[in-house]
């Protein structure tokens, strides 16, 4: 089953193309790294996949549905690149609201909140306002919201942004744990070493087009790192 799909997806902002005829399919349970230089179209691709924007041309499918349909976004965890938390809320209230919108029942909600808060190391901060959290803690809070309800699909845009080295390792562990329980992962990141450790497939975008795509073992030539393959694909 295909969890995420872009078929000939083109997105233009005015006359400027952000994505041009991109084909991308992520099987359920796979972990795909979406790579590219700044402005290559990674975040645009994620916005199309989550139903935040419509393609100018082509089709977008999230679990076989139009991502604009609420049912397509059931059991999706999302961590945006520019995480803007509603500062006046407490972390507990933020997670509580996320849980309710995710469809968690009253019985499961508190247990789930406690579990993700424990996992992401923010349990002691549940009563604090979001605008009082440091950048790293805010990123952990964003992760907690994304992981709430054990989503089947986890979309992470620059997930290690603002995290210290310990946080980076924790984030990798959370992603790997999600993958181990069968979740599909889509990670957009500039930190190639982390993508290499978590993902089994990679798509490299260049100026809105797919420059390279495939399994890691297909993309990497003998002795190459992902960084080498990335530079080769992006520089052409």
């Amino acid at each position, binding site marked *: 089953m295909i969890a995420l799909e872009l078929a000939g997806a083109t997105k233009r902002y005015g006359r400027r193309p952000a994505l041009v005829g991109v084909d991308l399919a992520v099987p359920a349970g796979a972990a795909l790294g979406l790579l590219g230089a700044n402005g290559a179209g990674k975040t645009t691709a994620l*916005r199309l996949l*989550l*139903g*935040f*924007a*419509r393609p100018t041309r082509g089709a977008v499918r999230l679990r076989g549905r139009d991502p*604009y*349909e*609420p*049912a*397509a*976004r*059931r059991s*999706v965890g*999302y961590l*945006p690149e*520019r*995480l*803007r*938390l*509603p500062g*006046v809320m407490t972390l507990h209230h933020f997670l509580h*609201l*996320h849980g*309710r*919108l*995710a*469809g968690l029942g009253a019985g499961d909600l508190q247990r789930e909140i406690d579990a993700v808060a424990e996992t992401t190391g923010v349990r002691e901060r549940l009563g604090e306002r979001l605008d009082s959290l440091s950048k790293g803690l805010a990123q952990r809070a964003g992760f907690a*919201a994304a992981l709430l309800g054990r989503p089947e699909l986890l*979309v992470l845009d620059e997930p290690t942004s603002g995290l210290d080295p310990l946080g980076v390792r924790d984030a990798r562990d959370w992603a790997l744990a999600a993958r181990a329980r069968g979740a599909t992962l889509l990670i957009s990141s500039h930190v190639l070493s982390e993508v290499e450790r978590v993902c089994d497939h990679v798509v490299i975008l260049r100026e809105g087009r797919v420059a390279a795509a495939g399994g890691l073992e297909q993309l990497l030539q003998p002795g190459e790192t992902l960084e080498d393959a990335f530079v080769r694909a992006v520089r052409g």
Partner: protein
Amino acid sequence: MSPGLRGFVALAAEAFRDGLRRRFTFAVALFLLVAGLGAESCTDLGSASFSLNQRSIPPEVLAGLVAPLLLGWQALAVLVITGVVAADHLARPLVEGSAALWLARPISRDVFAAARLAGALGVGLGAGALLLGTSAGLVVARQHLPAAPALAAGLATALGALAVAALAMAASLVLGRSAVLVLVLGGVPLVALANSVTLVGQLVHPDAELGGLLGAVDRYGPPLGTAIVAALAPWNPHVDAAGTLGPALARLAVWAAGGLLLLALAFRRTELE
């Protein structure tokens, strides 16, 4: 409860809390206090006698003049308050980016917009219920006027607030906050003025019609003032507005439905950051 309704309730409650946290709400609270004191004073005619051109004015006639004026301007203030809250109640989470967090969940655009609208209406109509309820209570208790016109005015205010808030929210998706505020702060009084001038003209000459811009606003715009004045007219025995309230409420309902439709269509087309 369906997932959509559960999501709406959760988001609407948050939108209401969000509305209460706004700095503007402090101004609203201050306004309520001052307006409440004004209502307390205006409704207390006591045992004084009033005369005009050496003709004594019976207290019930005076009450029938003062009470509609009092509740009328208060109702218009409620419309403005609701419009101001709605002016960025949906646009702000879009600009700030927090809307994307909620809309990544299985929540439709329509449910999210409706929840933000409900939050803005909660603040505006909550203030309205407090203010109009207090004033109407004082008028009914002190001047012994019937309560039904006040209830009808409450309905007209609620419908008007829905229309104003939905239109302001839809406009906020394409215009900046300042522009929407200008539309609300200019538009509501303009409509009320057009409605009032027409109604006063019709008191003098029943077939009188207002021309020009004000006439067009009165004929085709949302009858915000007409509905409220027509609802309160039974308090004044010298004003015959029978037959005006029903059509005005119906036209206001059409404007409210149009505003909701416009908001839904505009938000479905809005792209999130």
